[in-house]
C-alpha cells in the first residue's frame, strides 16, 4: 500500500471531481426537460408521435452509452455540412459532445420513468379536477406533475446514480474527469489499487449523498397516492 501516493493524488482527483459534477448536473437538467418532453409525446394519442417517442427511448436504452458518445464526438464531425454551421463550435468540443450524449441518454431513461409515473396516477384525481371545472393546463401543472414527481423519485434517484457512473465515459473522449485523471495516475504510477481506493471512495461518497438526499425528499414529499 502506497499511502503517500493516495494522499498526493487526492487533491488532483478532487479537482477532477468538479468536472464530473459539472457534467452530471448539466446533463441531468437538460435530460429532465428532454425526458419530460418525450414522456408527454409518449402519452399522445397520435400513433406516429407515440411510435417516434418510443423509438427514441428504445434506441437510447438499447445501445451502450459509449457508442452514443462516439457517434456524436467522432461521427458527427465527419459530416461536411455540419462543419460549416454554427453547430460545429459546439460539436468540436469534447465537453459539449459528452453533455449532448449524456443528456440524450438520461432523457430516454427519464422519459420512461416519468411516463410510468404519469400512467399510475389514479384517474380519480383527474376526474375530480375536471368535475371541479379546473382547466386541463392547470390539471397538468398542478395535479399531474406534482404527483408524477413524487412517484418517480425513487426511480429517478437510481437514474442519477447511473448517470454519475455514466459520466466516467467522458474520459474516453479525452476529458479529464474523475475517472480520466484516475486512469492517468494509474498508467503513470502502475498503482491501480491505491488509486482505485481513492477515486472509488470519492464516487461512493457522491452516491451516498445522492442516495440520502433522495431518501430525504421521498420522506418529505412522499404521501400515499
Amino acid at each position, binding site marked *: 500500500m502506497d499511502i503517500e501516493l493516495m494522499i498526493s493524488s487526492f487533491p488532483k482527483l478532487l479537482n477532477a471531481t468538479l468536472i464530473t459534477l459539472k457534467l452530471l448536473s448539466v446533463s441531468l437538467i437538460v435530460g429532465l426537460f428532454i425526458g419530460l418532453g418525450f414522456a408527454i409525446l409518449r402519452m399522445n394519442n397520435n400513433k406516429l408521435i407515440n411510435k417516434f417517442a418510443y423509438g427514441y427511448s*428504445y*434506441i437510447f436504452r*438499447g*445501445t*451502450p*452509452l*459509449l*457508442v*452514443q458518445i*462516439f*457517434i456524436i464526438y*467522432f*461521427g*458527427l464531425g*465527419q*459530416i461536411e455540412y455540419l462543419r460549416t454551421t454554427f453547430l460545429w463550435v459546439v460539436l468540436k468540443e469534447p465537453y459539449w459532445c459528452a453533455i449532448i450524449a449524456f443528456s440524450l441518454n438520461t432523457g430516454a431513461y427519464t422519459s420512461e420513468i416519468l411516463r410510468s409515473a404519469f400512467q399510475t396516477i389514479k384517474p380519480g384525481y383527474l376526474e375530480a379536477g375536471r368535475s371541479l371545472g379546473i382547466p386541463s393546463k392547470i390539471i397538468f401543472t398542478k395535479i399531474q406533475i406534482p404527483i408524477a414527481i413524487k412517484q418517480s423519485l425513487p426511480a429517478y434517484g437510481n437514474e442519477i*446514480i447511473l448517470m*454519475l*457512473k*455514466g*459520466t*466516467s*465515459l467522458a*474520459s*474516453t473522449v479525452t476529458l479529464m474527469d474523475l*475517472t480520466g485523471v*484516475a*486512469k492517468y495516475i*494509474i*498508467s503513470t504510477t*502502475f498503482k*491501480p*489499487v491505491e488509486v*482505485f481506493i481513492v*477515486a*472509488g471512495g470519492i*464516487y*461512493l461518497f457522491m*452516491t*451516498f449523498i445522492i442516495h440520502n438526499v433522495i431518501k430525504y425528499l421521498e420522506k418529505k414529499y412522499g404521501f400515499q397516492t
Partner: protein
Amino acid sequence: MELLYFGDKGWGDELFFATLMTIAVSITAMIIGFLFAALFTPLKLSNNKVLNSIGNAYTTVIRGVPELLVIYLFFFGGSGAIMFVASIFGYNEYIEINAFLTGSFSIGIISGAYSTEVFRGALQSIDKGQFEAAKVLGFNKYIYFFKIILPQMLRLAIPNLSNVWQITLKDTSLISVTGLVEIMRQSYIAAGSTRDPLFFYSFAAVLYLILTFLSMQLLNRLETKYSKGY
C-alpha cells in the same frame, strides 16, 4: 455498403466475429456473475453481522463505482496480482493475462453485484411458509433447495435477470478500452482505417440494438415458461 463486404475488401467478417466476441464475453461475464451471486447472496441474507457486511460492501461498492474504474483496476492490476502470486511460487517472468479473461472477469464482478441483489430480492419474496413446509416435511437439502426453493426463486428472478443481462451486454462495450476486439473495438479500428466513424459507430449501435432485441425475445419466452401455473 461496400464497407460491409466479407473478405479483404470490407469489414463484414471482422464485425461478425466481433459480434460473436461480444456475445461470448457477455455470456461468460453473466456466468461469472452468477458464481459471485451464489457466493454473496447467502452472505447478504446471513444473520452474522460480519458476513452480512461483507455481502453489503460488495454490492454497494460495485454498484456505486463506475464500471470503467473497475475495468481499469483489473486491467492494470490483474497481471500485477497474478505475478505477485506467481512470485510466491518462484516464478518471476512477466505474465500477461488474456484480455478476454480480464474483461469477462471485471464485467462478471459488476454483473454479479446486480444478480446478487436480484436473487436476494427473489428469495426474500418467497412465502415463508414454503421454507417451513419443506423443512417440516423432512425433505433432504437437495430437494429442499433445487426442487422447492430454486424454481420459485427463478420465477421471481427472471424478469429482473433479463435487465441484468441487458446491463451486462451494454457494459461489455467498455472493455474495448483494454484492447479486446469486440464490437466497439472493431468499429474503432474500422473507423480509424477507413475514416468513416459515423458509419461504423452507427452500425455498432445497430448491432447492439439487434442483440438487445433478440435477447429480449428469448428471455420473454423463458419468462412465460417459468411463470407457468401462476
